[in-house]
């Protein structure tokens, strides 16, 4: 017993935080600490402080590194709080050191400010609507937060309607608030979603994949049938095609895309395109 305890203590003491660069695209577990690129040199095998003088001022710019979902700052290191793959995005215009985040798989949505979501109206009380967005509390939506809405001109929203909007307030201390206009007062596609069509739920990871800039799945789906589709970051997708059969096919394909490889997907699309 004593030997086992000693071995464990030794391994804990000998644990070194890994460099974030070294574990990119690998699975990280909660509790791991990651070093940002600037700090790696100081932690090298020479011990603390011994560093050869560099003639150039350092290859990496000491910009601000943004800590994305799944990571938390702890001292001058990054602490992993969710299990998943570590990802990094280079800064676009050269400012800062880029973004690090953990790509994890999740079905339960937590409201985040700025996210566009699909909500279901559950109640109308006075001046606000209560909208269920899949989080722990229903979000509140004021009736004035629609394009062209005034006190006299109320929007036509019933209980049970689907709303596409974005969060303006979403933190863990207050109930979330959402609106259906942007900062200039324009709708930009937000508002009440039409009457027909099918709403179904998928995982959050699939939504993020589908909303990525060059999503092959969406292009292939668009070639199949003409359709209208709305993605909510809370895992809800609304889809509408000309007939019920087509809508059902689209819904099943999108749900299945989660677990299919690209080849299987291409097979299925080609089979559907023939029939």
């Amino acid at each position, binding site marked *: 017993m004593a030997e086992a305890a000693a071995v464990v203590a030794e391994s804990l003491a000998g644990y070194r935080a890994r460099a974030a660069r070294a574990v990119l695209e690998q699975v990280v577990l909660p509790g791991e600490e990651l070093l940002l690129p600037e700090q790696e040199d100081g932690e090298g095998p020479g011990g603390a402080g011994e560093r050869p003088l560099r003639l150039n001022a350092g290859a990496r710019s000491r910009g601000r590194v943004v800590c994305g979902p799944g990571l938390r700052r702890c001292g001058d290191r990054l602490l992993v709080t969710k299990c998943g793959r570590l990802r990094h995005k280079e800064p676009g215009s050269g400012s800062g050191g880029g973004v690090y985040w953990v790509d994890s798989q999740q079905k339960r949505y937590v409201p985040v400010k700025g996210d566009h979501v699909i909500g279901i109206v559950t109640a109308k009380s006075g001046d606000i609507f209560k909208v269920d967005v899949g989080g722990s509390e229903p979000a509140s939506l004021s009736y004035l937060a629609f394009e062209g809405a005034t006190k006299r001109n109320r929007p036509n929203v019933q209980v049970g309607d689907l709303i596409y909007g974005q969060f303006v307030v979403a933190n863990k201390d207050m109930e979330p608030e959402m609106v259906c206009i942007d900062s200039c007062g324009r709708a930009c596609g937000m508002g009440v979603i039409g009457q*027909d069509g099918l709403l179904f739920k998928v995982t959050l990871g699939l939504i993020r994949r589908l909303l990525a800039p060059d999503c092959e799945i969406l292009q292939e789906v668009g070639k199949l049938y003409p359709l209208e589709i709305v993605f909510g970051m809370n895992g809800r997708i609304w889809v509408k095609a000309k007939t019920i059969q087509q809508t059902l096919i689209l819904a099943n394909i999108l749900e299945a895309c989660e677990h299919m490889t690209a080849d299987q997907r291409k097979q299925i699309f080609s089979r559907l395109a023939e029939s």
Partner: protein
Amino acid sequence: MKETPLSNCERRFLLRAIEEKKRLDGRQTYDYRNIKISFGTDYGCCIVELGKTRVLGQVSCELVSPKLNRATEGILFFNLELSQMAAPAFEPGRQSDLLVKLNRLLERCLRNSKCIDTESLCVVAGEKVWQIRVDLHLLNHDGNIIDAASIAAIVALCHFRRPDVSVQGDEVTLYTLEERDPVPLSIHHMPICVSFAFFQQGTYLLVDPNEREERVMDGLLVIAMNKHREICTIQSSGGIMLLKDQVLRCSKIAGVKVAEITELIQKALENDQKVRKEGGKFGFAESIANQRITTFRMEKAPVDTSDVEEKAEEIISEAEPPSEVVSKPVLWTPGTAQIGEGIENSWGDLEDSEKEDENEGGSDEAIILDSIKMDTGEVSNIGSQDAPIVLSDSEEEEMIILEPDKNPKKIRTQTISATQVKAPSKKPVKKRKKKRAAN
């Protein structure tokens, strides 16, 4: 947590789909979802999966004193619990209505139908009888809990083995599992519940409703039957009016379904018994496939590909590079070329559309043809028609494809360097070679 509310558009879509006889997962009106039965290592433990709805059943027994008014009969006890992991709406205090309804239905189905011989559970009349307790836990709720629960209960009861008991005069000996093999319960028949969901005031019916279909249904009819076509229990809830012939039709459908399910159960029980007798591995761990993706299963490939990479590398390194094949297209008319022999064109209907395409392509060809004519002087002599036409000095076979709406100037420069020009998409690119030879 509160249940996610059903939006108007979902409700409308589901009802319209049902009117068109379409279900969300592509089933027919009378189709059941896939039923999967797996057993645990103990006797009497099983998990039944009806689609995504999962119920765990466990049977246990105990020697107790009998009830006063039934001194020679054993005691049966059924309990269904809706676990909080089954659905976010199931909370410890909140599920009472549904829970009571399901428990009552299950009891009527199994106890009142006398499917288990309670007299055989008596050990010493008036003093000791077996109390059989069936515990069912709902692990995931995706609709039609009652069917899955009834299947799980009867399967667990059929699978269960109680310890052997012998009575000699006043002495009662209870043998342990090591001393004597445990004894199965005596079961007369297997009642199974079949649910029918009704929509639009009884106009449309669906067998084995999904969770979403249950939300929009008007009423539910549950018929518990065994394979001898005896109805054990029948219950209609939701307050819909059903006609006599509708109920009769449902009972006929139930008869068919119950026969299929009973066969499935028998097969599962036999398989498990065989595995246990042969000494193979059994239990839940064996029934879960490895590398399983939870929603859509990944089939294991029947081919062993473990060392294919090494073998392939060897083969590739030893093989010679493939011989170059250069095709010799034959140009029939502007816009039509032929590569190889081929058979007669049998697409009679498409001749008209093909002709249109040819005309379309013809104009583009004309522009390119002009540009080529201007450069004929500079293009090197291609040679006779029979020799293989090699257009570029480069080793690669790849042809560089340009956009057809680029400047003719660009095309001209490209033709000087003897690379390919893209023909309109419908024509084969190889036609270009033939044009040069013709010039």
